């Protein structure tokens, strides 16, 4: 594992790798959104290798090559819809659609979709975009639509913390009282199809992700440092709860092409990797026996790591000390 660290003079709240057209290509471009700065921005970064120095075989240089800074509020959600479209959600409640094929051009803006506290996360599954916010609203949009197609107002009594698409018509959200909810976007009702709870205590869930191949397996990161695995086919959905970190797990990401790896990052300043087959039948039966192996990818770096993303064998994460880490051979 080789680690490159660069201080970027802005606290980043989200980083996302640009999706590659083929899985063999090495990721070298990522997008990052900043927060709590006087002027926040969405920027694109490129990693270039220089072989100039004799002793160090490869020096990685992180180069910020495009920035879009006419944003109001903090960037709180960021996602690549495809390799040239980026969706960003801000704390003022705006959802922005960028075209990043040549430079970052604002293609469309949905304003004030969320009230107080703004948007907390966005997810995309072309052509759909979903955004969730602290007001408990869920907004469903399409890339080409000028207005949101559907607004589920007060879908949740508590702030929603994250959202993911399970299939093109099903989404899953987490909130601050520990509920994992599934929604069917085609159903006319404004209630979730299912509500699952990770524990009896009202511990906030901060993030959710679904397994790349086994779509019934979901992992959530909680405010108590636990990663909970859910099997949505079961009546009693939470299957396994693992204490991976000491403090809030801000993001969980399953690896898209090697699904036996789950990456987590936390307020305690570390990023870890869980290796397991995630075969929930086995896990539920054995209990402790087939516990995933936990290895440390970034050790406690002093301040919270807010977000991470993994693509191929590269991992990128950002922390509250205004630094971005890029780790090669993280898998």
């Amino acid at each position, binding site marked *: 594992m080789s680690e490159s660290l660069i201080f970027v003079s802005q606290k980043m709240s989200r980083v996302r790798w640009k999706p590659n057209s083929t899985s063999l290509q090495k990721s070298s471009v990522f997008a990052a959104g900043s927060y709590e700065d006087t002027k926040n921005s969405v920027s694109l970064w490129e990693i270039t290798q220089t072989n100039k120095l004799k002793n160090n075989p490869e020096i990685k240089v992180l180069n910020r090559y495009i920035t879009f800074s006419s944003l109001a509020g903090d960037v709180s959600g960021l996602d690549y819809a495809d390799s040239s479209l980026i969706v960003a959600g801000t704390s003022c409640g705006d959802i922005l659609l960028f075209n990043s094929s040549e430079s970052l051009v604002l293609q469309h803006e949905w304003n004030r979709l969320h009230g107080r506290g703004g948007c907390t996360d966005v997810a995309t599954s072309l052509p759909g975009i979903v955004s969730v916010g602290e007001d408990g609203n869920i907004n469903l949009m399409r890339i080409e639509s000028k207005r949101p197609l559907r607004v589920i107002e007060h879908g949740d009594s508590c*702030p929603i913390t994250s959202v993911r698409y399970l299939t093109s018509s099903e989404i899953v959200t987490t909130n601050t009282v520990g509920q994992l909810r599934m929604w069917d976007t085609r159903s006319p009702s404004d209630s979730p199809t299912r509500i699952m709870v990770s524990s009896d205590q009202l511990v906030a869930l901060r993030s959710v992700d679904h397994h790349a191949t086994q779509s019934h397996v979901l992992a959530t990161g909680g405010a108590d440092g636990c990663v909970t695995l859910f099997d949505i086919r079961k009546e009693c959905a939470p299957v396994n709860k693992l204490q991976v970190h000491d403090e809030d797990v801000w993001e969980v990401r399953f690896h898209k092409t090697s699904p036996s790896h789950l990456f987590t990052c936390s307020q305690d300043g570390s990023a870890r990797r869980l290796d397991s087959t995630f075969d929930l039948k086995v896990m539920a039966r054995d209990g402790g026996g087939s516990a995933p192996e936990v290895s440390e990818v970034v050790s406690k770096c002093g301040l919270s790591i807010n977000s991470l993303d993994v693509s191929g064998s590269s991992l990128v994460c950002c922390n509250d000390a205004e*630094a971005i880490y890029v780790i090669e051979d993280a898998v």
Partner: protein
Amino acid sequence: MHTPVSRKLVNESYLVFASMQEQKAMQEDKTINRAQLLKFSRNYRSIIRSCLLELQNTSEGIDADVAIHNESQMQLYSIMDLVWSLCEIIFIENLPGGVILLRMVEWCKWNFPLVDDLVRSCMSSRDNLPYQHPEYWNAVTALVLQGRLAEARDLLKLHPEFQVQVYDSYSCMDELLRKMPVFSYHQGQSISEFEIKWQHWQAECVKRLKDGDFDTKPELKTICRILTGDNEVLTEVSHLCGNWYQMLVTYLLYNNPTTKVYDLYYHSQVCIQMCNSHSEWGALDNILLAVCAFDIDRVIRECCEHLSNWWLPAHLSDLLNASGLVPADAEKNQVEIELQEILIVRFAESLMSLESYWNVVAGYLANCGPLSQQYLALFVQRITLTSEKKASKVLRLCEKHNLNDEAQSICRQLCRQALREKRHGDALSWCIKLKDSSLAMYIADEMLSVYAKTGVFPNIDLIDYLGSSVLVSERLTFLGKYRDFHKLHANKEYKEAGYLLLNLLISKIAPLEFWPSLIMDCLLLLSKEDLIYGVEETTNLLSCLNTLDQKKKVLEKFSETEKNNHLKRMQHLRVALTNNLAKAIVS
């Protein structure tokens, strides 16, 4: 402190500071060993250097104001670098006598590139004849002044009058330069051995000068006079000598190479005398003199007075205090600790104007000194909570440092804000965290009144999943159970519903205002076909009914029609209950 480059300085140095505190915490006496301390010091220096380099690289393509600001920042950073590197040599490396000079020669070489510029300009002359360059002799002399004799010899060899075979003034000089002894501490040479060798060598230089070996070439004569430690010659070549601290190195090289750290002050006074004519005395000179005087207090004080930000004094004093150089005398120690606390707090204050720095400020305040908890508590109250995520981070910070009161007040503030905006679900989740039963009661009451008005429960998605948190407040428990009752009723589980209702009435957790509604629900159940309530239950219900009759307060809020309705319902219920009792006794 808010420009992109200074943000890098602040953040990177915070991480070094934090890991230093961790190291200190592991030791009992709060000191760190030399090797580690040197590592941290080098870390800090490399951060300053990289910021300086970055500023130098971004000097094109910016407008005038930014350029001026950059200029002053670069100046500040180079002063910081200079001061820190000298402090590292003198205070932290703890070198024995003799080795100090070697390090100082290196320090001079790295920080004062005038000589390198001269050499470069000589070598780059177009005709490829360096010796004809006007600066040639200046370059050679300056190299000798800085003690870089090998380079001086190389440059000298380029002169055409230098012929190896012929023994003349050039080869004589070359020999002298070659033979100058250098203290090889690591090969185990002892100080006295070195001193003898050096004195021999200098005597040789004096002899050759007296013999007139260099009379033909005045430039070589000047150089030889420097080698003999002749101080008057330094005034002749003062334009090459630089400041008094550069001259200090020259002076020590050719007068007292085995100097110890403690003698530096005396020697620097001599150099200052010699240098008095040209440059003005500035802030940097004050600070460097204090370093040579081995007076840590004075160094820190001078830095505070003359530098425009608190970064250097705060971090330098933290590093030096951790080295154990501060005397163990209890009273003085107390003063040192307080001073350091104040420095860190002042530094943290200077960062507070940029909201983005709040994590870093909190980190500094948490480690400033004996009053860190109080400072941190005051700061936490000032952090603006713009989102739920930030609030959670602040609460996590409070938890880590046992600031329970602040955490409670933050939760209360957020709960009240949610209530003002009528977001009952959010408010409830905050007040459960707070474990505040009176707020929970208030919220539960609000929800119940919504139900009473509309017949629909608000925030079902929250109430149904409260789990054990309902126990925070009695009213909340009632709300939860009442909702359960409705669920059971909807599922046609009338018997369970009936028992639940009875329990609600008997256990008296239901508020009096709600009893009429509960009574109505009872009526519904009693009209079902099957017998739900047995003898005992019916008697209990009857006694509840009697209690309700006696409580006239309930009727006060009702209007005339409502009162009449209520009395009629009570009447019906009494009849229904009596019938039920009869049925129950019979079956």
